[in-house]
């Protein structure tokens, strides 16, 4: 927050040229290539799932059940990552599961981030009582274990994409609102906002036309930094039986199903969990890089 105050004192932000010069050089060279590669593979595989997957994710084949991965004794190249208790191909389920993870993450981030963005802008721009009320709500949301509300939603609304998106929105909007508000506080003291006001722009127009573009960088960084978090939350909800309902494969659900067979078929739980970890790691490192590049002041968040 100290940094925001500094900017308020100065009145003007640093000029774009000065900002560019102060950026560490060679950012593209320090692009986290491994993360980038993992994310690219994930997206391609998820989009092209029907073409890439060797089998149907829901097709059962009981004679093949519990085949271990190819490199283990008894494994076959027909099922590279083995099969589950119903003889479904783990690799194919993993590939279709990537789809679910990405769709849920996208829907939830757009909804939750959108709500947070709006609340943050209104709160920061209007200030006063509205601001202190909204920030109280944000504080309350942040200190409450909101995942409980997410579970309650899943039980009362029934499982499905929409429910998960609403549940994750409830979970993340406050984080977005708080950071965006901080940015808005700095932006609204700049001269172009006052000028717009003098020109007779309505508050609504100022917020939409003048404030939003100036907090967009921060917003994008926040979105990227939260992808990994959202994927973990979705997997946890699925693990707890409150996610996308079966038979649609989702990674959390796969771990949950594999849990009871951990002694005899370790790959059922370990493989999808490792996939979650790898993907979340990739998104987090990518997000860190994007933050350093676009908006280093967010480091403390």
């Amino acid at each position, binding site marked *: 927050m100290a940094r925001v105050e500094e900017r308020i004192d100065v009145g003007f932000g640093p000029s774009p040229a000065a900002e560019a010069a102060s950026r560490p050089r060679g950012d593209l060279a320090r692009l986290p290539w491994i993360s980038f590669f993992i994310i690219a593979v994930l997206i391609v595989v998820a989009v092209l799932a029907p073409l890439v997957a060797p089998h149907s994710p829901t097709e059962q084949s009981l004679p093949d059940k519990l085949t271990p991965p190819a490199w283990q004794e008894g494994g076959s190249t027909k099922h590279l990552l083995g099969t589950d208790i119903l003889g479904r191909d783990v690799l194919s389920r993993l590939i279709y599961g990537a789809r679910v993870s990405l769709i849920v993450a996208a829907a939830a981030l757009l909804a939750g981030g959108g709500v947070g963005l709006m609340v943050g802008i209104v709160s920061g721009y209007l200030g006063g009582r509205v601001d202190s009320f909204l920030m*109280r709500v944000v504080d*309350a949301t*942040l*200190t*409450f*274990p909101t*995942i*409980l*509300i997410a*579970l*309650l*939603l*899943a*039980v*009362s*609304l*029934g499982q499905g994409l929409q429910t998960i998106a609403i549940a994750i929105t409830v979970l993340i909007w406050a984080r977005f609102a708080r950071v965006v508000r901080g940015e808005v506080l700095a932006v609204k003291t700049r001269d172009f906002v006052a000028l717009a006001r003098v020109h007779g722009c309505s508050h609504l127009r100022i917020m939409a036309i003048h404030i939003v573009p100036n907090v967009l960088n921060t917003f994008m960084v926040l979105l990227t930094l939260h992808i*990994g978090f959202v994927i*973990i939350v979705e*997997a*946890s909800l699925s*693990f*707890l*039986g*409150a996610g996308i309902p079966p038979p649609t494969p989702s990674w*959390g659900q796969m*771990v*949950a199903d*594999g*849990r009871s067979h*951990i*002694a005899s078929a*370790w790959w059922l*739980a*370990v493989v999808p*969990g*490792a996939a*979650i*970890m790898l993907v*979340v*790691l990739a998104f*987090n*490192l990518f997000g860190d890089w994007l933050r350093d590049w676009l908006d280093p002041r967010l480091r*403390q968040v």
Partner: protein
Amino acid sequence: MQRFILRRFLQSVLLLFVLALVIFGLARVSGNPADLLLREDATQEDRAHLMRALGLDRPVHEQLYIFLAGALRGNLGDSIRYRRPATELFFERLPNTLRLLPLAMVGALAIAIPLGVLAAVYRGTIIDRVSGAVAVLGLATPSFWLGIVLIYIFSIKLGVLPSSRMGGPSHYVLPAITLGVFLVAGMMRLVRSSLLEVMGSEFVKLARLKGLSQTVVIWKHCLRNALIPVTTLFGVYFALLITGAIVTETVFAWPGVGRLTYEAVIFRDYPLLQAVILLKGIIVLGVNLGVDILYAYLDPRVRYA
């Protein structure tokens, strides 16, 4: 001070009221709460009977009154699965969770503080990078998966630790680790950044000018101040632990309130779930209130803010 306590107390009560409204509202958003309470094979007469019994045939404001009045008397309905009062079940399981949480908290602090200090003191070196990598990995590991992997390694392959249920001290090891890792990454980063901030302040420069050794400056002067933000976040960590306990207790079949939450979800036991959430809400709000009051007592600036 009394005014501060009163204000914070009223705020917590208000929040609790809002939580009760949310729970009450959610049961009705999706249609008739009776359908949430009934088993799938229930007949139409069962439904009508239940609606009368619960007062669902009355206007909404009367229903709300009945719900809140019941909640105030500690009556949050009976669990469908266990056919017993939900509050009774909750308080039966609570001690088991409370045995696990402090272990996880202490364990997390024992790892996070030294790692955070090392990272700050040796900023930019390989030590900083390694502890940074630990934090990044910790954040990316789903705790339900970590628990299963730990069971696979230590219970099944090595056979040295029990995999589930409560028992002797060895039963606590894996669940406490799983739950603790959940906190370590965030705590470590916080210790690091807050220590770095303190290390740059004037009184630290003075301590160095006086010729105090590095060890004394870091551990005595800096760390004490650096830990203030860590302690104020106790309430947040507590909420995180309550969340983490749901998954951890599920993985380790630990008979606590986290596992009870999971059971309520998978058996669609709505009365049990709403009771669990309301009671956990009360506990979290109570802890937060306590932390805030303690903090205001320790630091007068907070009281008058």
